[in-house]
């Protein structure tokens, strides 16, 4: 017998089979409960397919989604955006909500401009309101192509397109 060993009360030797039912139940229950906690945690750790790029950046489309001289609506935060591939193969992105009465707009391939079907408002691809009721220009965004993805990003500075060439109403020469 080891003299240094502390005499402690270990539990009794295993009881007969039917008496071990409670132990099995407890062990089984604990395992089941741990599994039901662990499963969500493990699923949580795997990053989801749509990454969170933050409110200022979004993957609007993939290369090939758009033909030249076509447009596509994408979701940018809580508002729609419009991605356009010009006939010169250049990507442009702007806010797709009309500044007149908030209708969602579209790209007109015949006019090469952004058009609001509600009251015939027209904006150029720089976001300037050129015709119809819209009172203000559209917010424009930066577009970057990264591999197969077309990334649209809010501009860092709040520079908007200049308003001076608004041809809707010239008040001086009326």
């Amino acid at each position, binding site marked *: 017998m080891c003299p240094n*060993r*502390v005499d*402690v*009360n270990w539990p009794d030797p295993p009881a007969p089979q039917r008496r071990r039912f409670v132990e099995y139940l407890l062990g089984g229950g604990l395992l089941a*409960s741990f599994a039901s*906690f662990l499963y*969500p*945690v493990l*699923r*949580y*750790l*795997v*990053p*989801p397919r*749509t990454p*969170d790029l*933050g*409110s*200022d950046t979004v993957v609007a489309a993939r290369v090939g989604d758009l033909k030249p001289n076509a447009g596509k609506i994408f979701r940018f*935060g809580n508002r729609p955006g419009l991605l356009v591939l010009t006939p010169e193969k250049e990507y442009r992105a702007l806010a797709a909500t009309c500044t007149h009465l908030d209708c969602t707009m579209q790209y007109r391939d015949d006019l090469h401009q952004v058009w609001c079907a509600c009251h015939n408002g027209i904006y150029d691809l720089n976001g300037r309101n050129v015709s119809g009721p819209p009172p203000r220009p559209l917010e424009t965004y930066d577009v970057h192509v990264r591999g197969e993805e077309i990334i649209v990003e809010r501009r860092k500075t709040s520079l908007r397109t200049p308003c001076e060439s608004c041809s809707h109403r010239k008040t001086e020469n009326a």
Partner: protein
Amino acid sequence: MNVFARVRDWLDERFGWAEMIAPLRKKTVPQHRYSYWYYLGGITLFLFLVQVGTGMLLLLYYKPTANEAFESVQHIMTQVKFGWLVRSIHSWAANLMVFTAFAHMFSVLFLHAYRKPRELTWVSGMALLFLVMGFGFSGYLLPWNTLAFFATKVGTDIAGQVPLIGAQLKILLRGGEEVTGATLTRFFGLHVALLPGLTTLLIALHLALVQKFGISVPPSLEAEWSAQPVERREMKFFPNFFLRELMAWYIALGVLGALAALAPWELGTKADPFAPAPAGIRPEWYFMFMFQTLKLIPAKVWFVDGEALGILTFSGAALVWLVLPFLEREGSRRARQWLFGAGIFALAYMAVMTVYGYVAK
């Protein structure tokens, strides 16, 4: 020899494992009609562990900048698998923890467990209570939604009313003059680094003290048991109390899961610093009693500014509460009754003011 016995021996040869856990084997918990209150401390600890766990999981996806915080929480709630569960558990457990911490404090007060030799246990516990409220205040801002933004604005405005140091305190808390992204960064640092560090140390201290002094028995019972030693009943901590504690922890876990799934924590709308404050801004429920009191105090009491007076009164009360054990002369029945009365008054006041704060609008 089975696996457990082999591991046990391995640890014992190197660390004297058996010797280390021997006191735990001998630890007992008094059994009497108030014994159920003893579970509250453990439940608070359990909730803290839940918070650390869910908090670390949230840290994997949360982005602590004014621009991205709200969207990252939205991302967690909608895109991350079971993100809604982790976040809702974190929010609910936070509230439950504040509740159990207060309940634990009051039960210790009414069961008179703070008396000699357990004064420092009380002080460390009060410090932990303040830290828990700090956790609540700092964590509430992190989703950066409208309610949180304005609640933080109001809360730090009130802090700014503290006489002499108020203005500096406000700037220190906010990381600037106004509540901005700088405030968020500061609160984030507090919430995930400074406060957890301090809390861990204090919990270690608190538990070590509890271990050292054992579980206290209310004075009346202590007197009874001294007179009739045979009446004294003690339960072994391990395994008996421990198993019961485990039951309590599982019940708490079940309640948390049910709350998270049946009453998920809302996201709100992203904070807009330039929008006017929505009507009915109020802090979380555990600050409500103070908020409501400040609203009721008139703008000027004699020549003293009302809000400052309110803040001073609460600070004074907190200080008194902190040093409660030292106000009582040993064995003095009068002092004990006074403190008991003060405890009843405080509890009633907080409860009434909290309800009033919600009803009055």
